[in-house]
């Protein structure tokens, strides 16, 4: 297989799924697998600006998320998930190449990749 999509579905900080999905995504690029990181459902919160996890006693996910394009991970934030949560594009982190994509566009990506992992 040459390509993979990692579907992020869970909210950040409440569990380790987002950071573990980021680990998987970066590992896949080490062998030049075409890697897509798709943030949908509550995972869209992981892409919001001004995250402050200080009171949780946990490191912020922002640096790890912002680093993904450096590993050639293509990033998407699902439009319908944003709308359901009243998140606007200007609320998102400024990440090079981050694309707000509709369900239809995401379906095309999932159709094209060889496999997908949901976290």
């Amino acid at each position, binding site marked *: *297989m040459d390509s993979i999509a990692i579907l992020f579905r869970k909210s950040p900080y409440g569990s380790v799924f987002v950071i573990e999905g980021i680990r*998987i995504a970066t590992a896949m690029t*080490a062998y030049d*697998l075409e890697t897509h990181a798709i943030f949908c459902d509550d995972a869209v919160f992981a892409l919001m600006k001004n995250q402050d996890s200080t009171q949780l006693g946990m490191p912020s996910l922002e640096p790890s998320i912002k680093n993904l394009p450096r590993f050639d991970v293509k990033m998407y934030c699902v439009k319908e998930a944003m709308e359901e949560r009243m998140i606007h594009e200007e609320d998102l982190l400024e990440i090079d190449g981050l694309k707000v994509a509709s369900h239809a566009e995401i379906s095309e990506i999932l159709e094209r990749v060889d*496999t997908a992992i949901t976290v």
Partner: protein
Amino acid sequence: MNIAILCMTTPYTFGQTETMLNFIDAAMKKGHEITGVYFYMDGVLNNNKNITPSDKKEKNIATLIKEIVEKGVPVSSCPICAEYRGVKDESLLIDQTSFEGLAYLTELVMDSDRLLAFTI
């Protein structure tokens, strides 16, 4: 078909491990090859030879994993996930399994026709 398996959930709390093992059994009987099983996140808790259900009628996950290893399926666990969960100890691992980093999972994905992930 060559199939890679990723397991991310704990034994007994969720039924995913048992489903995974049933799938592996059925796939191998149909002639498919299981290129490897990778335990990740809480899934590393499956790879423990000391698993002992107190209800003897309950299936022993460790025994079932040992059986697929004996059939030639490579089984490994993420060492970092194991470290976080206090189980990064080779003496705990089911015989003939190992700790392997995420690069190993990437290689499994590259060498397989399909990846099946058991998660929540």
